[in-house]
């Protein structure tokens, strides 16, 4: 381990570093090779005037940025995106954790339950959302019918018809799709925690909550960070759920950045403004990732 403390310059050419770069090469070549042009082009579009097919016509400097950032609606949409992401990721993480803990207990039918919990994730997202729109349908949908039958509420709302209920209905679908991934990752982490750690804790008379706090959680800490970070990036950019359920409505009360981007790009064919929003999204997500990375690598130095 001692050589890892040597100066970076020396490390750069060390055989170990050379091997590392060689191992990274294929992944990086494919990643950069395919993504560099699309990503640079988004930035170029944001700095140019584009035609209705997104081709650059002339350089516009920061004009598009000023136009977008000066629009009050843009900030409302951005704020809604952040709320959407924070709420959805928090619930996905909590629910995913509960499910993973449950599936980590031995009981008959556990494997089948595990398989069934994966189901929401096993279906294509646009199709799942369509199915949900069928579930939410006021006249023929089974959700409100069931709520009435169970006596939970005599007069369930028309979910997608009003601003707040539409937001709740949409975010629930996003959560529903995202929970299985969380549960799967957390469970995989729990499985790799050596059983003997629990056993010795058991001998020491530690209770379940303490076990979770002092063994399970630290053991899957990295995974929780990775999974929530990625989930945050995906949730922020989750376009299908809102677009298919509400198209951002009623009025624009469920419009978030990604649906706005889509609308500007493919409906209004204003690719320059859409790109500005995409660049802003990138900056926001970079910020979130930087905060996460701090936690992630902080843990690493300690260990």
């Amino acid at each position, binding site marked *: *381990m*001692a*050589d890892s403390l040597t100066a970076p310059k020396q490390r750069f050419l060390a*055989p*170990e570093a050379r*091997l590392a770069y*060689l*191992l990274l*090469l*294929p*992944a990086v*070549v*494919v990643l950069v090779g395919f993504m560099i042009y699309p990503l640079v082009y988004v930035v170029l579009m944001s700095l140019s005037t584009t*035609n*209705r*097919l*997104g*081709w650059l016509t002339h350089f516009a400097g920061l004009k598009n940025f000023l136009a977008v950032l000066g629009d009050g609606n843009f900030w409302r949409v951005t704020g809604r995106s952040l709320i959407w992401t924070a709420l959805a990721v928090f619930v996905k993480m909590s629910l995913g954790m509960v499910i993973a803990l449950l599936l980590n207990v031995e009981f008959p039918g556990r494997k089948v339950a595990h398989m069934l919990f994966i189901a929401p994730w096993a279906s294509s997202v646009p199709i799942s959302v369509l199915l949900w*729109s069928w579930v*939410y*349908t*006021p*006249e*023929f949908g089974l959700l409100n019918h069931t709520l009435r039958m169970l006596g939970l509420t005599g007069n369930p709302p*028309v*979910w*997608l*018809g*009003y*601003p707040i209920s*539409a937001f709740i209905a949409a975010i629930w679908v996003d959560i529903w799709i995202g929970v299985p991934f969380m549960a799967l990752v957390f469970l995989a982490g729990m499985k790799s925690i050596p059983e003997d750690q629990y056993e010795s804790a058991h001998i020491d008379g530690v209770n379940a909550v303490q076990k979770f706090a002092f063994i399970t959680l630290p053991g899957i800490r990295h995974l929780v960070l990775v999974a929530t970070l990625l989930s945050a990036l995906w949730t922020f950019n989750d376009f299908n759920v809102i677009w298919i359920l*509400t*198209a*951002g*409505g*009623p*009025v*624009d009360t469920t419009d978030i950045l990604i649906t706005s981007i889509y*609308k500007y790009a*493919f*409906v*209004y*064919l*204003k690719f320059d403004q859409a790109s500005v929003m995409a660049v802003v999204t990138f900056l926001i997500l970079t910020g979130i990732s930087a905060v996460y990375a701090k936690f992630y690598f902080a843990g690493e130095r300690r260990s």
Partner: protein
Amino acid sequence: MRITRGAKRFSWALPLAGLLAVLTMALASCGKPVAKATATFFWAQYDGVTEDYRASLEAAFNKVDPNNQIDIVSVPWDQLHDKLTTALAGGAPPDISIIGTRWLLEFYGEKQLADPTLYVGKDTLADIIPGTKEGVVNGKLMGIPVAAGARFLAINNSLATDVPQTMEDLEKDAIAANKPPDHYGLIMPGKKNTELTDFAYYFYAAGGDFFAKNPDGSFGKSTVNSDAGVQALTFMNKLANVDKVVQPGYLAQTRMEAHPVFYAGKAAYVMIGAWVDSAMKQAGSTFPVTYAQIPGFAGHPSTPLIITDSIAFFSGGKALPTAGKFIDFWYKPEWKGKFDQLAGFPPVTESASSLPAFNTPMYKAMGVAAQHAKGWPLIATWDQCQDAIWDAISKVYLGQATPKAALDAAAAQIDKINNIQ
């Protein structure tokens, strides 16, 4: 310290395999032989037009001449515009595609269209009914009509029999037929959707137009906030929130969710299009229906909405002559007539019009409607304009604004979109 001689060997194994895999796949996909001309056709998935039909049409054409082949690629209607935009922007468009006629404007503006009359045979062009040729840009036919249908009124006769002559009559009839929660007077989709159809029914019925026309024929200021616009929106809001004759939950329903309430026999009146017949069969509807005209408001003539779809030829296509031959093949009555029947549209060709299948009350109502119907304004920014109008409608439904205030705001927004002072 942890590096060993084995590292070299390992370093060749996995990463190289990965790179090789990518390379092989890239190579394998290159160098496809292009001996014969194959035209690509983006085919919108119309309700009722079966996969069998698409496949057999493709097979039948491809059997005729091995050097002229067609690949009919079915695309969901809601994704067609996206897929087409991506393909055009990416420089690899299909040869031909079904489009909503108003899309012609944006593709024409970017010089993406080819002149279809250069590729489609004279006989085929002569067979097309003149009234359906809406796809005209700058006096030239740029889109071959594929489907054209005026909207009309359908009445569930087990709930109501009166044929309203004015919108005011329709309101009275709807109130009379309304018995919630058993059944409702009138269907009204109230959720933002890709098309603004329901507002257009009432707006045109009040004699409205979306834009003022400049002397040179181009579109000027938005007139959606005209008296006609306010009358239409006030009326719609009254039906929904004062008379309460529309199906509950209308705010959460597009036509896709709202119309089934009619199919289920739970509504007396609906303004709808040609698909109603096949949709009712599918849903097993048993009630008797009469078809009538969408009325005008008192003092205004009936002015229904007509929607046409076209086939566009793209200048970036690789096999346009083949595509033209395909259209000639497809537009023969035995194929096109079958398509029209399945999709439920009245024929766009003279030769198919005489088929007995089109001699029904519904097609007769559509024929009458077509004579004084109006289409969408052919303006390239229409999608953004209609979004502003949708927001105005939703605000009024939610009680957040009066019809006048909401439409004034929408009109101002539309003028800004079109750069008009």
